[in-house]
Structures are given as C-alpha cells and as structure tokens.
C-alpha cells in the first residue's frame, strides 16, 4: 500500500497505522503543516496542552496507564527544549514515547534561524534514539522505526525532528508492515540454562526474597499475573521498588511493602538478611540499595532484566538473565511446576517468623491527631474511599509521593504513575490528564504537594478544555516538605528557601480555571470532603491542609545500610532519633 502524499500527511497516516488514537501537543511555526493535516481528523485526537513539558508528561501518563506508546507533537526551538524534561523523565523510567518535533527548513539549518535549535543534538542524551529527517523518502521508514524502537527492548523516548520543507514535500508513503529494523533486535527470551539454574537456587533457598521493579509493569499485565503465580507457588516474600508498585497486590499475604530509602522495615531487613535475592525488572537504584558495600551482604543474587547493561551495573550479581520479564517468569513458573520443585518449607517458616517480627515494628505507623490532618492519614482515607472504584493515581515529587507509595495500597499494575528516576516535580497533573484521556470513565487522582503542583499548574486549563474530571489532591504543608526534611536532617534545621510564603488560594485558583475547589483542614471533615471531591464530575483542586513539619519515615539516611533505618517517632519503643546526628559527613555528600 504505497500512496503519494506530503510529509505532513505521512505523519498523520503513520500515527493512524500505528493505532494511535490520542496525541498531546502544542502548535508553532515549524509544525503548522502537520497541524493542518490533523485539522478535522477523525481517528487521531489531539489534546492541546498549555506547555510542552505538559505534553510530554501527559503522553507518559497515557503510555503508563494503557501500555501503548505515548505521542507528543511540538514545534521547533522552544517547543523542543520545553519537552526535554519530559523526555529525560521517560528515559529514566523507561516509558515508550514518540516525540515529533518541527524543525526549520533544511536550507536554514545551522543558520541560527528563528526558533531553530539543534534538537537532535540536545535530545541525544535524553532519548533512547532520535532522528533528523532530511528527505521525505526516509520519513515513513523513520516514523515506523521510531515506534518499534520506543516500544521494544527496554522502552524509552524517541524523537523525530522533521524540517518544515520535508513536511511540505511529496513522497511515497509505506505502511508499517514492511519495516524491519536492521540493527535493533533486543532479546526477549531468557537463556534456558540460566533460568533452570535460577529455579534450582530458588528451590534450595532458605531466606529468599523477590525484589521487583518497573520492568514487570513494562512487560505487560501478563508479567504481573505470572509474578503473582510464582509468588503463590513458592510462598516467597516479595517487595517492590517505587516503579513496580501494583505488580503484586498490596493486600497479598506475601507483600512486604515498598523497599528502599522510604521503604518498610520488613522489606529492607528482608533484603539485608536474605540468602537469595531474585531481582525482576529492577535496576539497583541508589534509592534502593543505600550504602553499597553493606547492601545485602550474604545473598546470592539473580537479576532478570531486558537491558544487558543493567546487569552488574551497580551491584555485582551471581546470575544475570537477559530477557523480557514476562517471558522469563513464564519459563520459571513452568520449570518450577514441571520439575516438581518445592520450597524448603521449614526454612521458609523460620524466615517468615523473622519477617513477622520486623512487621511488628509497624514502620509505617504514625501518631494521628484529631486537631490537624496528618498527611499519612489523608492518604489512607483517600485509599479507603477510592479503593473500590476504578482508580488511577499519579503524583508529583516529594514527601506526598512517598506517603502515597507507602499508604495507598496498589492492587493492580498500570494504576500508579509517578516520576521515579528523574524525580520531576510537576509530573503529576499532566500525567493525570494523559491517564484520563486513556481511561475517560476512571477516577484519576494526582496526589500532589503545594510546591510541585505549581510547576505545571497551567495544565488545569487543559483539563477544563477537554472536560477531564481529574482530581488534584494537594497535601498542603506550605513547605517543600522533602527539602525541609533534608534540611532538618543535614543542615541544622536551617530552612533555606524551602518555605513558600505567597501560596495562591487553591480554591479560588480552581474556580478561576473553571474547576471546583475544596479546602479541608479538619480531620473530622476529611471523609466527607473526599467524597465530595469524588462525586464532582469536573476537575477538582482539593487543598488538604496538613501538619506542617511532619517527616516522612521510615527512612534509610544517606550513606547507611538497609538495617540502619530511622523509624517514625512516638509509636513504639524506638524513641526519638537525634535527626541532626544520624547522617555522617560522608553521607551528607549524597543526594
């Protein structure tokens, strides 16, 4: 099926052929031909954002909640540079995006033309791959290749930079069926010998733990189903990174909670004391490992990852298996069954006994209050009142993000969208818009902080334009809470520039955008206010005024090991830690 058409028409036709129903973007001089081709288009719906960073995060939210490739369309120069943060975010969290950028005409490239920038040069380091299309003949191939590269192997963002004259030029369109990538053919099946070895190690383990990450989510819902099956078969405990929440249900019996810097006591101690660690689609990030030379010192480590460069990058493992988590887990389940493996039940019973001891520390506990809303309590009520609905949660970055990860129980994959690797404040609202576009009837809530939300507040306008009933649930403590907490821990409580003196009235702000504002300061009124938010069929900003100087615990301080956690104060015999003294000089250098 080859047809003659302009480059701009090729872009829209390729989107159709790739099954894209929604794109996020912002027009400008260098993409006008593509916008013209989109004019009145039936099958590809364009969502007009208010800032190109918002387009990128919206495409991420769309991709993460739907499993499809997210698409954004922006103009040259500032359009492209504004998208850079979102592209980097997608690179670090392995989210498949295709970003189409306009470029000045080819004869002007290099002349410092109006709204010219070296888009492929700038985005080379923050994309999985990028293209500058110099000839319309190359455009169809590149368009289809970009979708292939974005979604295969370890997913990531791909930029296609298209000069305006190439958009106007006429050429022959070729469909996706003839596109075979000549070099990029990532391995998805794991080596069977290694998988067999892994299963044998699992059968012999006395203190095993599954440590799972975003790779399980990226491998699709079937990977989560297989993971649950394997956990059920083996009865091993399981913990997950921030990125992997939902792949195993928080209500599951074997669930230890999240691990890492703000992970649970039981998850981190199980990691520290295990004799077999099975890492599935997780990358030993510094937020997870804490002090490296004290990381899980006595364990044999198995690492399953689709990206060979992830294996042995940070932590030396004993058995690396390169492959897609779904394929490898499927082989593991099959081998475990067919070879009649069984776990060491006596050893496991003893291991679970130790874990139950750690669980008794109740590391997510907090001292609740009747006079002021505790942020943890707010998240727990939000969970309780939304868990029986079709709910998706996005977040911004900071304390509220960690509290959401700790206290909102995720039962399914693709329900939790958060900026993990890059830690991008301003992620949550545009991501929620992307999620709501993919799931029009779902309840989509952006758990936010009052500082983060202001970074992409303008996207409220987008939500209203498309009648997207997203809910912004702000835990408002007037501080950049995590910055303030670190200043308390590291800098003698000198709260340098972490207090926002002139916050807007969020209720009036919601109303100014045409949405609904709700404020709640009284714990006794919280439930009713949350229910009112849920029942409002419009975008809502919920200003939840919470305890100002609450710290996020538990916490592994910088430079410390998994078994050197700080626990919350006032809930057990742990006593109040001297926060100023817990991090040594070396730890202060860390982020």
């Amino acid at each position, binding site marked *: 099926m080859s047809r003659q058409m302009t480059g701009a028409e090729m872009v829209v036709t390729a989107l159709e052929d790739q099954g894209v129903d929604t794109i996020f973007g912002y027009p400008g001089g260098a993409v006008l031909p593509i916008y013209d081709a989109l004019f009145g288009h039936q099958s590809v719906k364009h969502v007009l954002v208010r800032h190109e960073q918002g387009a990128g995060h919206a495409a991420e939210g769309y991709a993460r909640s739907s499993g499809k490739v997210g698409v954004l369309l922006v103009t040259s120069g500032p359009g492209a540079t504004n998208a850079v943060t979102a592209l980097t975010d997608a690179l670090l969290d392995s989210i498949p995006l295709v970003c189409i950028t306009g470029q000045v005409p080819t004869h002007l490239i290099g002349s410092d033309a109006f709204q010219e920038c070296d888009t492929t040069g700038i985005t080379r380091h923050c994309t999985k791959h990028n293209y500058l299309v110099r000839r319309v003949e190359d455009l169809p191939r590149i368009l289809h290749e970009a979708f292939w590269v974005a979604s295969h192997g370890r997913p990531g963002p791909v930029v296609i930079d298209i000069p305006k004259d190439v958009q106007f030029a006429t050429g022959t369109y070729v469909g996706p069926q003839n596109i075979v990538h*000549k070099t990029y053919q990532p391995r998805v099946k794991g080596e069977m010998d290694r998988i067999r070895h892994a299963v044998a190690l699992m059968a012999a383990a006395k203190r095993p733990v599954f440590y799972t990450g975003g790779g399980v989510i990226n491998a699709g819902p079937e990977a989560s189903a297989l993971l649950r099956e394997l956990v059920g078969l083996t009865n091993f405990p399981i913990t997950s990174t921030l990125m992997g929440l939902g792949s195993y249900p928080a209500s599951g019996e074997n669930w230890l909670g999240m691990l890492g810097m703000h992970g649970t006591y039981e998850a981190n101690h199980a990691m520290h004391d295990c004799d077999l660690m099975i890492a599935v689609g997780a990358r030993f990030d510094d937020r997870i490992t804490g*002090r490296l030379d004290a990381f899980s010192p006595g364990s044999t480590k198995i690492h399953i990852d689709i990206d060979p460069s992830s294996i*042995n990058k940070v932590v030396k493992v004993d058995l690396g298996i390169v492959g897609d988590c779904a394929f490898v887990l499927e082989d593991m389940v099959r081998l475990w069954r067919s070879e009649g493996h069984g776990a060491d039940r006596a050893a496991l019973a003893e291991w679970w006994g130790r874990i139950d001891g750690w669980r008794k520390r109740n590391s997510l506990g907090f001292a609740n209050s009747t006079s002021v809303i505790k942020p943890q309590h707010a998240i727990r009520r939000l969970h309780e009142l939304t868990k029986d609905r079709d709910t998706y949660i996005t977040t911004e970055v900071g304390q509220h993000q960690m509290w959401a990860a700790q206290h909102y129980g995720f039962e399914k994959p693709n329900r939790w969208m958060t900026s993990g690797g890059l*830690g991008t404040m301003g992620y949550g609202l545009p991501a929620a818009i992307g999620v709501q576009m993919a799931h029009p009837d779902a309840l989509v809530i952006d758990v936010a902080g009052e500082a983060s939300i202001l*970074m992409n507040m303008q996207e409220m306008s987008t939500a209203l334009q498309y009648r997207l009933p997203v809910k912004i649930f702000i835990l408002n403590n007037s501080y950049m809470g*995590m910055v303030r907490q670190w200043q308390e821990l590291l800098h003698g409580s000198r709260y340098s520039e972490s207090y926002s003196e002139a916050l807007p009235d969020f209720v009036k702000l919601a109303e100014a955008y045409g949405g609904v504002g709700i404020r709640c300061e009284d714990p006794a009124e919280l439930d009713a206010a949350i229910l009112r938010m849920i029942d409002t069929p419009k975008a809502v900003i919920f200003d939840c005024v919470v305890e100002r100087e609450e710290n996020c615990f538990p916490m592994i301080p910088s430079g410390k090991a998994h078994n050197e956690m700080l626990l919350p104060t006032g809930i057990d015999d742990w006593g109040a830690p001297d926060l100023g003294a817990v991090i040594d000089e070396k730890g202060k250098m860390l982020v």
Partner: protein
Amino acid sequence: MNALTPAPASPPSPYSSALVTSKAESHTLSVLVDNEPGVLARVVGLFSGRGYNIESLTVAEVAHADHQSRITILTSGTPEAIEQIRHQLERLVPVHRVTDLTAQGNFVERELAMVKVRGRGENRMEALRLSEAFRGRVVDATTESFTFELTGAPSKIDHFVELMRPVGLVEVSRTGVAAISRGPDGM
C-alpha cells in the same frame, strides 16, 4: 529546580567509591555501526556522559554499500567498567556489534603517525638514521626539515617521538589506533 539537587562532586560519592575494587586496565574495542549522521556523537557522548575514558578513537567507513563504519576505541577502566562500556555501546540503536579485542586475546593494532623534524647538519642526519631504524618513510623534505611517516604500535610511535625531541621535533599528527583480531574469523 527540583526537590533535591546533587551536592558538589568532590569528594567522590561513596555510592560509586564503594564499587572500585579492581585496578584499571586498557582495552581496545571494535564497534561496527551504521554510518548515519550523529552516530559518532552518540558514541563519544556516551563516554563523556557516563564518565568513561577515551585514550584513542579512530573511525572510518569500512563497508560503503552497507553504510557501515568501524570505530576503534582505546579505553581504560576497571573490568566492571569495561563490561559496562561494552553493554552501553551495544544498547545504542545504530550499533551492530561490539568486540572487546583485548578480552578476546590476540589482535594486531597499528597507528600511523607523521612526524615533522626541523634541523641542519648532524641533527638532520641523525633524524634520518633514526627514522630508517624505525622503518619510517620520508614523505616531505626541505633543506632544513623532514616529515616522516611511521606505522606501528602506539608504543613504538611514542618511542620514536621521544627520540625526535632532541634532534628538532616540530609537530606530530597521529591517526589513533586501528585494530583487528588475529586468525581467520571476523568480529
């Protein structure tokens, strides 16, 4: 702009310092890539972005019809870092194949240098005699200078350049290392 920005770079982060357990070694890598715009920037950017060393880098198209180029990189790092470099290179979309020639064992590496020497009388004759001993060729001469072409392992060229210093070394141009494995098999 975001919540927690990195502290100043020195002293080095304990996250990474905990990893340094073995000594740095030099490795020669051959990388076969699609000869497309930006491919060299991608490879070089990977090294600078992740803090790896490049001691020498050579690139030229080797298969014109297939638009393939071969990049030879001389790098140094711990064995763990070298393994990472190889995997990171393999991850680049236009990269066909990466071979660690040093890890593979037997290979030949050569570099070409042009060395300009200025002098008269005995110094000039001494330069010529030394170049003959190193199997150099004279590619340009004036009554007060010679330019020698020299091919060999980088250490041989280093040695020759040092010998030229006292007899009137002006400048050196080197190609960087090209390398290929011994035996009948390709990379």
